[in-house]
């Protein structure tokens, strides 16, 4: 499996788990708390920081594990682990374009919610989840390209 594909798996896994954790943290409050009083700020900040930190840590662990695995299979090949080429660049660009469109659609939705003067909770959550879904969509497009070709 190419190194870039492995790091994409890491970001897809981290992105979905953290977004699910955010929803799990704020969803129970929706029933009995007025949306203006929902304490979403702390979970949102934690989710944003956790996504970055866990993706970086996951990528580093993945890189080290890949290099050790490659050295065990064939001594001297560990340094090739991080190598990327034109195919990685093309796949990355395809995924990024999809992510951009999804994030833009989410931002438009947040704009509509703002104009409807809904509570800040809805605006912030829509923006955060737009970025999370955009990252997920981008990652899935990349993984599909790696697996099935293009």
């Amino acid at each position, binding site marked *: 499996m190419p190194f870039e594909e492995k790091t994409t798996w890491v970001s897809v896994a981290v992105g979905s788990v953290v977004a699910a954790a955010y929803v799990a943290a704020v969803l129970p409050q929706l029933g009995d708390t007025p949306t203006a009083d929902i304490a979403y700020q702390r979970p949102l900040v934690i989710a944003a920081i956790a996504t970055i930190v866990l993706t970086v840590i996951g990528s580093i662990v993945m890189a080290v594990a890949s290099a050790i695995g490659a050295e065990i299979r064939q001594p001297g090949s560990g340094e090739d682990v991080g190598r990327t*080429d034109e195919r*990685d660049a093309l796949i990355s660009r395809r995924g990024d374009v999809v992510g951009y469109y999804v994030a833009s659609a989410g931002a438009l939705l947040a704009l509509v919610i703002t104009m409807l003067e809904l509570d800040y909770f809805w605006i912030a959550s829509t923006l955060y989840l737009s970025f999370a879904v955009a990252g997920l969509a981008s990652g899935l497009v990349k993984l599909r390209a790696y697996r*099935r070709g293009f």
Partner: protein
Amino acid sequence: MVRPTRVTNRIRALRFAAGEMTQAELADRVGTTRQTIIAIEQGRYSPSLEVAFRIAHALGVSLDEVFAYPEQ
């Protein structure tokens, strides 16, 4: 599975003809990852003209001995 490209290639046969060159050796000479060589061999990726030429040079043959494109 639908093949995403109509370009066909004889890389596998030519690697064996070139002293049983491994995919990793070819990748090193061409400057790509081994996974990209695998994807090209399996018809899952159509390389740039530049990489296609480098593959032909590495295998010691001309471009149209490596790659073909059906008329219809």
